[in-house]
Every structure is written in structure tokens, then in C-alpha cells.
């Protein structure tokens, strides 16, 4: 679907495990890696990357759902609409004109939406991009027959386990870590910058309190709109928060 292909690439980035994976499961349709395409038939596990942003994709995902035993959607695009869902906040017509001289050549839906907005999904693996180890865990869980061990917690938990010094407290930076789903391993704080929400909101994301704190230490409302409206800005909790600060 609509994406940068980075999440599929994550599978190819499993350099140490790729060949074992190829032996353990029968990969039947993976256009990025193989020209033996077998999109027909029924699948035990289907991984889908990307958001739904064209009428054709909408049709395709319904078909995929129908032929898949388990549908696991991977990445921020597939789970929240992705960065391209920023267009959901703008006038679509105008967007088309900005990019394409003749918009009528291009087929596109007004909004970029997550897969779960259209068909039931069995598991959502978050991230922009997804984490390699988590991807392998989801596949392993599917092979072994158990629930994927993907912790449902804040980025802060990974940050602290890693021993990183909090950038909010010690550097005064804005960081979405406390309201963002873990999985990246707290990369940004480890690189001395605030989290920008690639994995989308966690459950119980108290975005309101975080925004209040940031406003209280001199950030502007426009800063808050930008902070919550980025890679996963169309995820409901972030969308709601960014709208609260719109002029």
C-alpha cells in the first residue's frame, strides 16, 4: 500500500535471519524480493505495509483480508495512515494541485487511513519503520502459535532500561516518549533528541498533560500542533491533541 517500502525492507535487513526465515516459512508473495509472485490462494500469515490512500488499494486490502488467515499490518502507514496522512488535515484538492500539474491523472483518496479502518486486522506492529527484532518476534509468534511479545508500554521504559538520560528533564527538550508506544528502543533520546512519535500513541497516552507541561515551559501552541502532527499525526490520540492547539 502507500509507504516508503522501509518496513518491507526491514525484512531484508534481517541479514542474520533471512535465510533461516526462508527455510522456516514458505514466502509466497514478496515483490520486493522475488519475482515469483503468487498472489493467489490462501495465506497463513499476510504482512501488509502501507496505508490505504487510493481506491484500488481499498479494493485490494479487502481481497487480501478475505484470503488471509492472519493479517498483520506493519508500520506507521498501515497502523495510523503514516506521514502521508498529514494530508488528512489539509484540503486534498489543493494538495493534488501543489504536486501534480494535472491532478486528474492521479488516482487518490482524500484521506490516508490505516488498514484497520477498512478491514479487521489481527495484529498491528507499530513503527516508522518497524523494528527488526519485533518483526521477527511477530513472525516467530505466528509460527510457534502464541501471542506476539510486543510490550504495550511507553518509550520511557525502554529509555530507562537503556540507561539514557531523560532529554525532557535534563535538556529541556520536547519529547513524545511518555505518550508514545515503545518498540524503537528509545532511539531518539539515546541520540540526544526528543522522541517524535514514530510508533504512534501508546494506550493511556496522556497527551493533554504533556502538552500542558510543555506550554508551561514556553513552547507555543504551534509547537504542540507540530509535535503531535508528524509521522503518526493521524492516530486518534495525537490527532485529538494537535487539534486542541490549532489556532
Amino acid at each position, binding site marked *: 500500500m502507500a509507504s516508503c517500502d522501509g518496513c518491507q525492507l526491514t525484512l531484508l535487513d534481517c541479514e542474520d535471519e533471512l535465510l533461516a526465515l526462508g527455510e*522456516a516459512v514458505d514466502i509466497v508473495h514478496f515483490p520486493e524480493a522475488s519475482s515469483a509472485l503468487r498472489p493467489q490462494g490462501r495465506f497463513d500469515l499476510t504482512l501488509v505495509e502501507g496505508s490505504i490512500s487510493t481506491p484500488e488499494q481499498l479494493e485490494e486490502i479487502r481481497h487480501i483480508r478475505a484470503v488471509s488467515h492472519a493479517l498483520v499490518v506493519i508500520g506507521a502507514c498501515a497502523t495510523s495512515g503514516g506521514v502521508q496522512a498529514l494530508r488528512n488535515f489539509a484540503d486534498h484538492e489543493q494538495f493534488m494541485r501543489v504536486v501534480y500539474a494535472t491532478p486528474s491523472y492521479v488516482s487518490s483518496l482524500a484521506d490516508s487511513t490505516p488498514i484497520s479502518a477498512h478491514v479487521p486486522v489481527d495484529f498491528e506492529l507499530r513503527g516508522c519503520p518497524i523494528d527488526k527484532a519485533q518483526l521477527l518476534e511477530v513472525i516467530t509468534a505466528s509460527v510457534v502459535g502464541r501471542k506476539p511479545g510486543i510490550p504495550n*508500554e511507553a518509550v520511557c521504559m525502554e529509555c*530507562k532500561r*537503556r540507561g539514557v538520560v531523560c532529554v525532557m*528533564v535534563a535538556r529541556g527538550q520536547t519529547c513524545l516518549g*511518555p*505518550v508514545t508506544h515503545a518498540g524503537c528502543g528509545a532511539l531518539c533520546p539515546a541520540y540526544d533528541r526528543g522522541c517524535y512519535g514514530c510508533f504512534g500513541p501508546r494506550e493511556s497516552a496522556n497527551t493533554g498533560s504533556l502538552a500542558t507541561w510543555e506550554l508551561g515551559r514556553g513552547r507555543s501552541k504551534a509547537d504542540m500542533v507540530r509535535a503531535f502532527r508528524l509521522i503518526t499525526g493521524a492516530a486518534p490520540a495525537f490527532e485529538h491533541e494537535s487539534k486542541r492547539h490549532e489556532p
Partner: protein
Amino acid sequence: MTPPPAHWLERDELGHLLALIRGDGYRLIGPTVDGAAIIYDEIEGVDELPVGWTDEQAPGRYRLRRRDDDAIFGFAVGPHSWKQRLFPAREPLVQIRRDGDDIRFSAARADPPPTAFIGVRACELAAIELQDRVFVRGPFVDHRYAARREACLIIAVNCVEAGELCFCASMGTGPRVGPGYDLCLTELDGGFVVEAETEAGAALVQRLDARAAADAELTARDAGLDSCRQTMGRELDTEGLPGLLFGNLDHPRWTEVAERCLACGNCTQVCPTCFCFDVKDVSLLANAETARERSWDSCFGQDHSTIHGAVFRPAIADRYRQWLTHKFASWTSQFDASGCVGCGRCIAWCPVGIDVTEELSAIRSQDPKPAIELPRPQVWWPREDDPLVPAPARVLEVQPETPDTVTLVIERTTAVREEPGQFNMLSLPAIGDVPISVSGSGEDFVEHTLRGVGRATKALSELRPGQRLGVRGPFGSRWPIELAKDHPLTLIAGGVGLTPLRSAMQQLAANPDDYPAVRLFYGARSAADILYDTELLAWDSLPSCDVSVTVDQASRRWLGNIGFVTRLLRRKELPLDGRYFICGPEVMMRQVLFLLDEAGVPKSHRFVSIERNMKCAAGFCGRCQYGPYFVCKDGPIFRHDHIDFIFGQPGF
């Protein structure tokens, strides 16, 4: 007892001390400046210590600042604590290897190098001592923690300056370093007063160029400690705090703080005493090798209290209250001390600056309800075996009970005979382990009845005779059968809640002289879901036992009772001197207890079995906490009056 002799160490001699320790084969972990904070990391000498640095702290704020002098320990505590060294954020517990039907479990041994902790503050040493209570003081010993603890040499430092967020004086943990150190330094102008508490410490002093401390130096030390005590940035009234908190579980402040709290878990992670962890099996595809790992967890996460898809602490208010009541109240029942040492880390490193001292004083000052009495800590008999490593056991037999329930008969792996009501942790590689109550046992076998509904139980229920699984246990409390001697005894079971009562029933039925009047009321979903039907009939036929069964759903062919188990009880006499054992879904137990209330049966005569999220089963991981209890070691069987104040209370 005379105080240990104090020595005086010139400032320049500190390097010598560190060199000596290194020379003795220790690696040094100490404070060092890293980017934006003073952290604890491996150091080589004095140069890497934060000489001339201090920290400014406020709620949600920490900044490094240069000092006017070149003090070495002139700062308060930072984001790291010694917990990271003794109880690492991630660590393998068990290596599991599958070879056909054979499974081998081996402990991932911590083989810690000798490590010297440089600059341990009073509050931090108190925190280490508190974690000792969790991990080594019973009933089980966490061998990994214990090995690291053994391998450490503690060079403590007295605080002569208080931080803005410090309140160790209120918690009684500082600023003077308490027992448990090898050496303790007090930094004064030009050098250190050095006190040794252990032989290792004293031996180090011997090898240094140190002289006996002069009175003036000791006076200066005491003055520094005094001034520190007096300038503590925070204060906390701890008087009767545990009872106060549990008496105010519905205080409006919980909702108020929940609006600010991010439930991010930072407070628990920086806390030097918080010990909760999660356990996961890490494997690749269907590989033969699986690593069972633990990693720090927090009661602020949803998974912490989730069991069978039910979330026991859905709201942030529930989670904050869980944390604060645990830290300042439950700890006292569990470990005979407050869980807070007053270091102030949770205040500084809360991203939105929530201050526990403020929250606690708000609860105390805003219309509090009366305090209640909390249970006293238990004394545990230590058990030497490693509770986290399963033993492989062969499945001897698999008896189908109902379409989704089987009884696994497995070979006994332990010398300890399970008691009715206790449970074992059953595990499969790559899938993990789950608590399953013992439904029966014999000389050389144990029986577990389980419903294959979750992924782990499903995998377990698909085992075949001859295959192996991992077993650790037995764990937990038991049905107090002996208390029922000479009293009518009523067992009330719902669904698979019958399984832990089955082994009790077997004993009761076998001893009619002691237990002449036993009644069993059992509610099942449908006729097809009734467990142990032949045994039920057999028990019913005994003069000493009376069995009644009811189902929720029936077809016309069913000629027995239909209706919830409470309908059975309503028709029966509920003797006041009787004893009652109840096990089933919590909603069922609640309804049964209401009926017993109506009948006037004393709470002390009723025993219930509680189920909560359980990972380690040995009292380490904190996940099965139930108010002041751990379900794994204080439970699963509780006397009703002991848990009355939290039973059915949302958020517990």
C-alpha cells in the same frame, strides 16, 4: 558498641584508594559526567569523577552546573541508581534447549566480576538493603541478584549537602550512611573522613596513607551531616502513612494527580527500590534455543495488571495509586519497611514534575478518612532451590475432561509434595510459563487440569504422553483443611475453579472421621463443561460428602440444577460455625461472599482463591501484587477478612 575508628585521608589519596581497589581486581563503577547528567558508569580513576560539578534539581528538571570549588562528591543523586548494577534492566534467566521431545532448562548464571561501587549515598545503601529484602530474604533467593550482591564492594559517601529534592531524613535513611558499607567517606575541605565497617574496608585503610581522624575533623563531619539534615529540600510526614493510604483508596486526589500523570513509568524506573519485572521467552522461529529473559517492568504499564485479557488497572488513577500505595504502604506489609528511601529521583525525573511528597501530604491534609490496619509482614522459611528454573517433566498421561479441558498427569520432579490449593508454573519453550493449580497428586505424579483457551494453555493442553514440559513449584498457600476439622465444611467452585478444590476434596473424602460433613457446590457453564463427573458422583455417594452441581446453560436432556451457583446456596443452610472454601471467577466469588454476609458467616471462616497476573511466582517480579500481598507467595488462598479491604475494589 564502640564506633569504628575513623581515619583521615588527604584529598589526593582518593586516587590511591581507587587504584588499590582496582589492583585488587575490582572494576570500578562510579559517578561520572555524561552529556547532561551525572550517571554511574565504569570509571578508571578520580579524573572521571564529577570533580567540580553539581546538579540543580527541581520537579521535572535536572541541570548540571559547575561548582565554585573542586568538590568530588558535591552533587546529589542522578538518574542512575545501583539497581542497574545489581538487578540489570534486562537479563537472561533460563536457557532452554529443545531436542525432539526432550527439553533442557539451565539457569543463566550471573558470574559477576568483583565490582566496587564508588560513592554510594546513604539513601542508596538503604535502597540496596531494601532490594535485598525482595531478592534474598525469602522465601526464595534470586541467585543472580545474590551473586552480584556478593561480588560488590561498597564505598559509601556521607552527604554534607542536601539536594533540593532530598528527603532521606524524613524516611530515616540518611544523610548518615547506615550499615552495609565497606568504607564510608565524608568529603571535607582538603580530604575525607574514612570509616570502615568491614574487614575488607579496614584492610584497604591499612594500605592507605591515612592517619586517625582528628576530633576537629569528626566534628566537621557531624556538622556537615547536621547541616545537610537541616537543609533537606523536601520533607514528608510518614506517621501512619500505610494505614492512611489504604484507608483513602477513594480519595479525590488520585483522580486529580491522574490528570497530570503520564503513566510513563519513569518514576518506577529511576526508583532505586522498584523491582517489578516481566519475563519473556525470546526465540527465533521454531529454533531449538530459547532464552527466557526478564526486563524491568512498571505498574504504570497496562500489561502489568493484565490477565486473560482483563485489565485490572485500566485507568491512570489506578496505576498511580498502585505505585504510591505500594511504595509507601504495601512495602511495610511485604518487607517490613517503607519502599521509599527519600532520594527524590521520582520527583526530578518525572517528565511533568509530579512530587510524591506533595501528593502524599495532599492526601493527608484534604479530608482524609481514618487509617486502617494493614497486615504485618510474614516471616519466611528460606528455600534454597532456584525458583525460576523449571525442571523437565514427562507427561505420563493426558485425560480429556471436557472438549477444551484436559488433565495432564506428569511425573513429579520435586521432593516437596504439593498441598491442595498450591500451584506449579508449567512451561514450554518459546511460549513461556503459566501458573496452573495442582488438581491432584500422588507419590510420583502431579495432576494439572487446564483449559486450553490462552495460547500457553492451549499449547500445554495439546501435549501428548511422553512429551516433556517444564515444571517449577510448588508455590503458594494452601487450603487450610485442618481448620475445618470438627466443623461443617462447604466448598464452592465455579468453572475451572474446581481444579484446586479437587485435591482438597480428595483428602477430605479420604478422611471422613475428621471431616464428616463436607458439601461441594459446583457451578459449570453447561453439562459438557462439568469436570471430574465420575469423581463428583463418587464423592456424592459417600455419607460424609454431599455434592450439588448446577449449570448456567442446559439442554432439555439435563435433569440437574440450572442456574448460577448462588441459586444452589440460597436453598441451603449456611452454618455459622462452618468453614467455606471458594474458588471461581472473581464475580462468582463476590456473589457467594455477599450471600455468606447475609447469612452472617464470619469472614474469618471463609477462604478464597485469588488469581492475578503472575510471572515469577517467587515473590520477585511484583506483577501479582494484590494490595499488600503477593498472590504468588501470600496467596493464592486468602482468608476473606485478610483481603476484605481490597477484595472487589476497582484497581486491585
